[in-house]
């Protein structure tokens, strides 16, 4: 059954190998730096934008990002995935990643980007960024560009969204509607205090319908709510999982026990990191943090070698992905309500080398609210088990027990491990820089309640949201 909410707030991860040529990579770095500087000027909200003039390389950011991506992109980043922590005798090539949290089918999304990019001046920028990738066709090649992008897109093994199913246009519309209501209440509170909740709600609806300043056409259409399609899918998934467990539990019991035995042996012999670097002493990482409501994290780590951990890793991510689709759809993931978007992607090692030299890497992208410390701290406080289940399969993770125990409970060691393996994101853009996940979900609820009649018992709950 058609479920429109499946086509909003999705994950696109394009990863392409860079040419092994220092000069091109340096050029790419400086292009990304220019974009970053330009965005930082924007991102530090009320600061004056710094002029960007760098040897004729000025990027017209107003075209590059807001113009190209604003309507259907929530967040995006460019990251050069290097291999600084990898073994010197087994280095992997540099990879450029474009992480985008977007609406619509990836094919349509890319075509939209392409269409907007074909306006004069705009094309060059994407080309300049990906130009250093092997086999990149210029945007001018049209369909071939879209195909190349899709060929290089990686599936998110697990993807979570704090407002899954709500397109960017509706996030923005909800924000505008709420702002119009705020202004209305400031101006009319005195006259509203003598009215009943129903009357207040009616007044607000009437005001919104009077085309007040601050609204755009179509703003009174709130985001579609999850309907029957979602519910059916949710229960079908649950039933399927339940049936699989019932049917397979007994036949697979010996296998499960064997798996567990191997796991415990591996856990005993794993070698956790013993790094002692300063968690907050990493200039390139902290210099760009804490500028707007959100921060970002790009985290890269090798999956422990061998099939056992690789298999376990994929099963855990599959489980999280399913939970994120059907269970954690109300703005919180295991009690954490500060994640806009998060995804785990595996960078498979497709080199033609013997299997024990093969290095599959797990990369984690997150767009979250507030500080690094509070974000990682929330993981430890509220979701240490889930976190440990994912990352205990990767190299250097603090010692674990039974896949989910210990590990992230050791807050200091966990944060150390996480920070050590964080890589700098050269460009990061937030399309909602004033709003936390809680703010956005509140706006959405305000929006939905503002354009329809509410039951008397729902009114007080709606009114305290304003």
């Amino acid at each position: 059954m058609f479920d429109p909410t499946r086509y909003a707030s999705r994950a696109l991860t394009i990863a392409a190998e860079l040419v092994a040529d220092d000069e091109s990579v340096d050029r790419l770095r400086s292009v990304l730096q220019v974009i970053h500087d330009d965005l930082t000027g924007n991102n530090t909200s009320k600061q004056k934008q710094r002029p960007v003039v760098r040897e004729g390389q000025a990027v017209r950011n107003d075209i590059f990002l807001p113009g190209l991506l604003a309507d259907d992109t929530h967040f995006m980043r460019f990251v050069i995935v290097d291999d600084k922590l990898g073994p010197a005798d087994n280095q992997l090539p540099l990879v450029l990643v474009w992480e985008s949290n977007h609406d619509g089918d990836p094919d349509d999304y890319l075509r939209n980007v392409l269409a907007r990019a074909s306006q004069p001046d705009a094309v060059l920028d994407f080309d300049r960024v990906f130009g250093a990738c092997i086999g990149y066709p210029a945007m001018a090649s049209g369909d071939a560009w879209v195909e190349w992008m899709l060929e290089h897109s990686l599936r998110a093994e697990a993807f979570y969204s704090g407002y899954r199913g709500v397109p960017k246009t509706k996030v923005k519309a909800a924000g505008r509607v709420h702002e119009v209501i705020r202004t209305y209440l400031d101006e009319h509170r005195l006259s509203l205090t003598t009215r009943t909740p129903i009357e207040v709600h009616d007044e607000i609806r009437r005001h919104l319908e009077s085309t007040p300043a601050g609204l755009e056409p179509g703003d009174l259409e709130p985001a579609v709510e999850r309907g029957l399609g979602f519910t059916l899918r949710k229960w079908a998934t649950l039933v399927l999982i339940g049936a699989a467990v019932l049917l397979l539990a007994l036949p697979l019991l010996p296998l499960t026990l064997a798996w567990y035995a191997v796991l415990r042996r591996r856990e005993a012999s794993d070698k956790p990191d013993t790094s002692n670097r300063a968690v907050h002493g990493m200039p390139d990482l902290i210099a760009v943090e804490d500028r707007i409501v959100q921060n970002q994290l790009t985290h890269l780590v090798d999956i422990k070698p061998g099939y056992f951990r690789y298999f376990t890793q994929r099963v855990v991510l599959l489980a999280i992905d399913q939970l994120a689709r059907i269970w954690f759809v109300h703005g919180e993931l295991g009690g954490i309500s500060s994640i806009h978007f998060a995804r785990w992607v595996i960078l498979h090692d497709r080199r033609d080398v013997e299997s024990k030299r093969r290095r599959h890497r797990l990369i984690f992208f997150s767009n979250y609210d507030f500080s690094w410390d509070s974000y990682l701290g929330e993981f430890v406080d509220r979701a240490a088990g889930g976190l440990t289940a994912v990352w205990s399969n990767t190299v250097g993770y603090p010692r674990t027990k039974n896949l989910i125990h210990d590990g992230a409970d050791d807050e200091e060691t966990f944060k150390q491990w996480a920070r050590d393996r964080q890589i700098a994101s050269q460009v990061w853009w937030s399309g909602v820089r004033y709003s936390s996940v809680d703010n956005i979900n509140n706006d959405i609820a305000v929006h939905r309640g503002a354009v329809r009649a509410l039951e008397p018992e729902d009114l007080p709950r709606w009114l305290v949201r304003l």
Partner: protein
Amino acid sequence: MSSIDPEAVPDTLDGADLAQIQALLFRGWARKFRWSSFLFVEVPDDPDAARAWLRDVRGDIAWAGGPGPEQLAVAGGQVPGRLQVAFTTKGLRKLGLDPQIVQRFPFEAKAGMERRARVLGDPVDDQRAADDLESLEQFETNKPTPTDWKDQTRGGIDLSACDAMLLLYATTRKDRQAIDLAQRALIKRFRGRPMASELSSRWLEREPFGFADGVSQPAIKGQPDATTVPPSVNNTIAAGELLLGYRNEYGQVPKSPQFDVGHPKHGGFDVGKNGTFLVFRKLEQDVIGFWRTFAKLGKRFAGQRVAEGHSVPTDPAAAAHWLAARAMGRWTNGNSTMSCPFAPGEQRLPPEQINAFTYGADPHGLACPIGSHVRRANPRDQRGGPESESWKVVRRHRILRRGRAYGRLFDPDQLLRKLLAEDTITDDAIAAHAAIASEPEAGDEASAEAGDDDQTRSGLLFVCLQASITHGFEFVQQIWNNNPGFHGVFQEPDLVAGPGGSRFSIPAEPVRLRLDNPSPVPAAPDQDEDERLGMPRFVIPRGGGYFFVPSRATIDLLVDG
């Protein structure tokens, strides 16, 4: 780092440890020693001279386990008093602590307060800060950032060069002056340099805006004779939250700077154990501006309905109090708006009741706004998730406050009366009328000639203690108090102590009130309307620093090598 089994390390204080811990952990001396001076010094460059100075100071330090000196030496005799000492990492290095061990101190302790400006919401020059971080080799000098927060004409202090902080406590103003002078003379005698002496006003158990302070403080597990009121379970935290060397609320033993086991002389010695980190901040408070703003808002909102059968009081002064109590989360008398939602109550609640409240009954902040100062600083059972989870999280971010007020003090009621009566009255005229005169005390004859403390400004000499500054002060400041999105609020940081520039919502029925600046600056071209209508800033940082408060054993190590 050696791996220790956290289970083997206690999270409860043992009586035997007390002799190792500076008394400040358990005593604020608010009643016994009402006058204090925080003296900042540069120790001599010669490590031998620095150690000799510390040897002299050592005998005066008060320890939690006693016996400590009851008297402090001053010119020509002795007076009752208390002394505590804390060091910057630079100071520890100058005292000859192995640089390798100094490097093992936490990053933020070495970086100092100014490099954490963005985290703390302090004014910061971004480019300068970035360059500064890029070039950091040693994180031990508090390099100043080019901002005006240390403007000396406004009482700002520059602690860039500071090595040590002496916390001096006395029963009278005269004694305080004598103790301060004696310590200044002492450091000079060893060719060190006394810097600022930050003098408190007499402690009246109120912060300068006039609100009762120190109502909610955590107690440490195993703490001896904490207070007369037994602290609740949720207010009693693992020793490792406030002291190094103990298990904390994560069930872990945080890293502590210690010698390698193989060190020839100090093998395995834990420099951090029984020590704590101290944050000092001089916070100027615009007391007149605060009440002037609330007086105007009181007039505007007087009589507005806020709940079934309840309104903001019609009397403008009472209305100002009502609104200020919403911003603060408690009334000036210290009663929470949870316990006394609509009026302050006849009198301050008794000690066993005043802190015995939770926010569970008020998830939307109708009695105590979610964004109010005290609810942010200690969200209790309402930090998200089930109550027990919320408490668990909150217990991981508690700090122990040991601050003192400075400058002239006001009676808020007198201030309000004056402000409401004369709309255009100047700050100076109000100050002359409404400041509380420092009443002379027995043995305080010298107060008239002292002329030592600042009587033109007011504020807080904020001091707090915690085992980790990132988990403690910085977290509370950044994630709770200054966070414009705290717990779902939208673009509204703490109104009382935050950066200003935002409006402030007070949940009410049928719809919320929202405070904006009653005296907005005239609109400038291309100025944001939100910025123009944002509330003023009432608290301005005027300098500060991060310090380490060592144990007796560590002081002995510094002195005796």
